[in-house]
Structure formats: structure tokens, C-alpha cells
């Protein structure tokens, strides 16, 4: 999205949205993800982890179709809310699914793959946005948004081939399937492997104990479980609290350090930095290395074919706020 809102085609078609309207377009996705993550829990318990991801894909298909066909910003906002629901469901249930199918000793690295995939998705989307900015007319952003179908398509095709979470299968009483899945994961399909039997006993024992512990919200507080509820929620709160300032402080600092003017405005590069740094995800370190590679094509374009300049005429990258972006400064980036 951030690679698209700066194209002339988008600005012209949507009559240069700014302020409240652009804010609404931008935050529509977040609004949708709140709804999505709120409904994700019950859905995932009801139809299963894997299938809840499949269910989320439906919203994505509809939302993307609405965006591709959009005639005004209202329609765009509606499409993004629907896509946001998908984001809300998948972002909370994919870690659940991954944690439940993983072997205990490999769980961390499996859950991390999701973050890695998000990172690469953003990277790919920027290149798509950049390429599509050369297409004249509304086909420019329609094509870019249309490519959102592609990963969803592969997900829908691929999901049925993935195993259901053995722990969810146990929870709903489909024991045979659960044991078979465990065996496939742990022991190449051998249900008699000691590891499979031991883990299965472990799962069922704890599950029975939990059933006795009570129903509904009591599960979250009884028998010391309030500590767990607190740990799970605060770990996310801390992550956000401690990290939110890092991109912002870099933002302010560079501006404090370099005071230079910029003649041209590689806005795409600016937006890219903004997006990259403002979203919090684990591979910012990698990102620091990747930024030069990504910024170069935009620079080339900005120099070869001057495009819309920002109204204030300045390049204000939120990480570095370098005012004059040079090759060597890009490397510094």
C-alpha cells in the first residue's frame, strides 16, 4: 500500500486523498485486524487451526476483489477492512498452528519462519508496487492490488495438504487422526514409536486435567493460570512498548545530525523506509543491509525522470531524515 499511495495514478484517481481520508484508508487494515483477532480464537477452536486460516482466505479474496474493482475511496476502505480481518485471524492463529505442530526442540525456529515470511512478503510487494507504477492509468494500482490474489491462491491450494494440528484434533476427540499426525511429524508415520506414544499420553493427560479445571474464562485465572495469561499478554505489550521508540529515535536523531537540503524527492524510497522502520518485526537488522539494494532503483528513477516533488520539497525519511540522499548516504542508510 505504501508503495502505491505515492503514485500519480493513485493520487489522480482518488483525487489526492489526504488527512482524514488517507488516514481512514491507511487505518482500515488495522481496524479490520482488530475485528479479525477478536473473532479468531473461537473460530480456531471450533473449526481448527488449519481451517481457520482457510476461512480467513475467504475474506482476503473478497476484500482483494473489492479493491481491484474499486471506484472510490469508500470501496477501497471496505476492501481493506476485509483484508484486515484476514490479517487479524492469520497473524494470531498461524503462530498457534506452528507452535502446535512443531517438535518441542524445533518450535522456536518454526514460529520464526512466519516473521521471516512477512518480511519477504513486504520486500516483494515493494518491488511489485515499483514495477506497477510504470503502468499508465488505473491499471497501475489495480494490477498491484490484484497480485494479492496470488499468495492467497497458493495458500488455498496448499493448505489441504498440510496436517491439522494434532493437539486440536485431540481436543475435539479425533484421536486416531491426532496420533497419525503426531506420528507423521515425529517418527515418519510410525504410530508405535515411543516418542509418539509418550507425547500422546502427555497431551491427553494434560487435556483431561484441563477439562476438570473448569469452563470458560476460569481457565484463564484458576490454579495460577492468571500468571500465564499475564505472561502471554504482557510479553506482547513489552515488545511493542520497548520497540516502538527505536525506529522513532533513529528518525529524530539523523535529522539532528545531518542538516542538508534535498533537491529531488525519491518518495517511494521515503515511504519504503517509513514502512520498513515503523512496522515492528524481527529482521530489522537484515533490513538495514537490504535497504541500499531496495532504494537504488527508486533513486535511479528519481534522478532520471523527476516526478512529483513533496510539497515541502524535502526528503524526510523517518528513520534517518537524511535531507540529501546520495549514493554514499544510501550506503550509510
Amino acid at each position: 500500500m505504501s508503495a502505491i499511495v505515492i503514485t500519480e495514478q493513485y493520487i489522480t484517481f482518488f483525487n489526492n486523498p489526504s488527512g482524514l481520508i488517507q488516514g481512514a484508508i491507511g487505518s482500515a487494515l488495522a481496524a479490520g485486524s482488530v475485528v479479525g483477532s477478536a473473532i479468531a480464537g473461537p473460530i480456531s477452536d471450533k473449526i481448527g487451526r488449519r481451517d481457520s486460516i482457510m476461512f480467513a482466505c475467504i475474506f482476503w479474496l473478497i476484500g482483494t476483489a473489492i479493491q481491484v474493482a474499486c471506484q472510490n475511496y469508500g470501496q477501497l476502505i471496505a476492501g481493506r477492512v476485509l483484508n484486515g480481518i484476514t490479517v487479524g485471524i492469520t497473524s494470531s492463529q498461524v503462530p498457534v498452528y506452528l507452535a502446535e505442530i512443531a517438535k518441542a526442540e524445533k518450535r522456536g525456529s518454526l514460529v520464526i519462519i512466519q516473521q521471516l515470511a512477512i518480511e519477504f512478503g513486504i520486500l516483494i510487494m515493494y518491488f511489485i508496487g515499483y514495477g506497477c507504477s510504470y503502468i499508465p492509468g488505473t491499471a497501475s494500482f489495480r494490477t498491484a492490488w490484484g497480485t494479492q490474489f496470488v499468495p492467497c491462491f497458493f495458500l488455498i491450494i496448499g493448505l489441504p495438504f498440510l496436517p491439522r494440528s494434532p493437539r486440536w484434533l485431540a481436543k475435539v476427540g479425533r484421536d486416531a487422526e491426532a496420533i497419525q499426525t503426531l506420528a507423521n511429524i515425529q517418527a515418519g508415520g510410525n504410530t508405535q514409536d515411543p516418542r509418539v506414544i509418550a507425547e500422546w499420553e502427555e497431551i491427553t493427560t494434560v487435556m483431561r486435567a484441563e477439562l476438570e479445571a473448569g469452563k470458560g474464562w476460569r481457565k484463564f485465572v484458576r490454579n495460577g493460570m492468571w500468571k500465564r495469561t499475564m505472561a502471554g499478554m504482557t510479553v506482547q505489550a513489552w515488545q511493542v512498548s520497548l520497540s516502538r521508540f527505536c525506529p522513532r529515535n533513529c528518525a529524530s536523531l539523523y535529522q539532528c545530525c545531518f542538516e542538508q537540503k534535498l533537491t529531488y524527492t525519491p518518495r517511494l524510497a521515503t515511504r519504503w523506509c517509513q514502512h520498513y522502520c515503523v512496522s515492528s518485526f524481527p529482521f530489522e537488522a537484515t533490513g538495514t543491509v537490504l535497504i541500499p539494494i531496495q532504494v537504488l532503483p527508486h533513486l535511479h528513477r528519481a534522478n532520471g525522470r523527476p516526478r512529483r516533488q513533496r510539497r515541502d520539497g524535502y526528503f524526510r525519511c523517518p528513520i534517518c531524515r537524511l535531507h540529501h540522499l546520495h549514493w554514499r548516504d544510501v550506503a550509510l542508510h
Partner: protein
Amino acid sequence: MWLFIDKTGRRTLLILGALGMGVCHFVVGGVMGAHHVDVPGGVGNPPNANIVISVNKGAPAYTVILFSYLLIVVYALTLAPVCWIYAAEVWSLGTRATGMSMAAMSNWIFNFALGMFTPPAFVNITWKLFIIFGVLCMAAAAWFFVFYPETCGKTLEEIEVLFGNDGPKPWNTRKGDSRLVAEIEAVAARKDGDAPSVHETESSDQEKVAV
């Protein structure tokens, strides 16, 4: 990252990460406090009213940049991934889906709150904001130490026990030590001695489902 995430414990990464980030915040805040120049109208031309102090040049400026980068590197290697893993694995089977939803909501709410208060805070108290975040990091490290048991290398079922009333104190927990290892051996031993009975349990389970 995923090369060592399962080798170094979650607690270790969380606590060291928070401490490291705290140190970076203190250095940045301290250097800015000592060397800043006030720019009342905002830095830049046209002025950016969100930033009203500036560290102009030389060693202090480079120190500030270096530690800001270090901060991001430390964060990316520790808190960023571990917090997602931890939030997904602490829940029990019955609470995991809803629990993870709650965790994601808490993430979003704090995101929103911080987005609201950070810009005005930086305008009003400038470099002191870094000290506040530094203190928050230290508090987080203490919080992790006191409340978060080690979950690395354990099955999801064992993690449940760690939080129970009879569970060990979080600071006494170690990575690995999976109860499962002993149970696997027990099952293997039982299997050698009395293989048919294990098989029977297995098949009766399957029949139950078939019916």
C-alpha cells in the same frame, strides 16, 4: 536468528535483550542530554515541529547514531522474534487460540497508545524520553526474570505445569529438561516388556473414533 533460537533459552534472550536495549537508550539519552542544542521552532527547513533538539556534529553525533543502530540490532535479535514465540507457546490447548487473540489485541492497543504519546513526549521532554524508555527496558528485564518461566525445549504440555500453583519459580527453570525424554524411555521400556498392551490401547482408541 532461527539458528540459535532453540539453543539459547527464551528467558536468556528476553532478559539480555531488554538489558542491552536499556543500555543503548541510556547512552543515547545521556549523550543527547550533554551535547544537544535547542532548536525551538523545530529541526530542518521547513522545520519539523516534532523534533526540537539537535546534536550537531562530531563524536557525540556518531555515538548517538551508533547506539541507535545497536538498539535496533539488539531488538531484532532478541525481543522481536521471541515475544511472538513466547506468546504462542505459553497457552494450554483450551486457551491457546483465544489467548493468542488476546495477546494480539494487547499488542495492537499498546501500539496505538505509544503512537499517540511518543511524539508529544519527545517535543516536551526531548532526550529525557530516552531515559524513560531505558528505565522501562530495565523494568521489563526484571519483569521477565520474575514472571516468565523458561519454555525452550519443552513440550507445550510441560509449559502448562510451569505456570501452575505447584510449578517451580520462574528463575529456577532451565531450558530443555523435557519430561518427555524420561517418558519416551519409560514407554520404550514398557514396550519391550509388554508390547501388546500398548498396541491394544492404540487400536481401542482408533475403534472409539471409528464408532
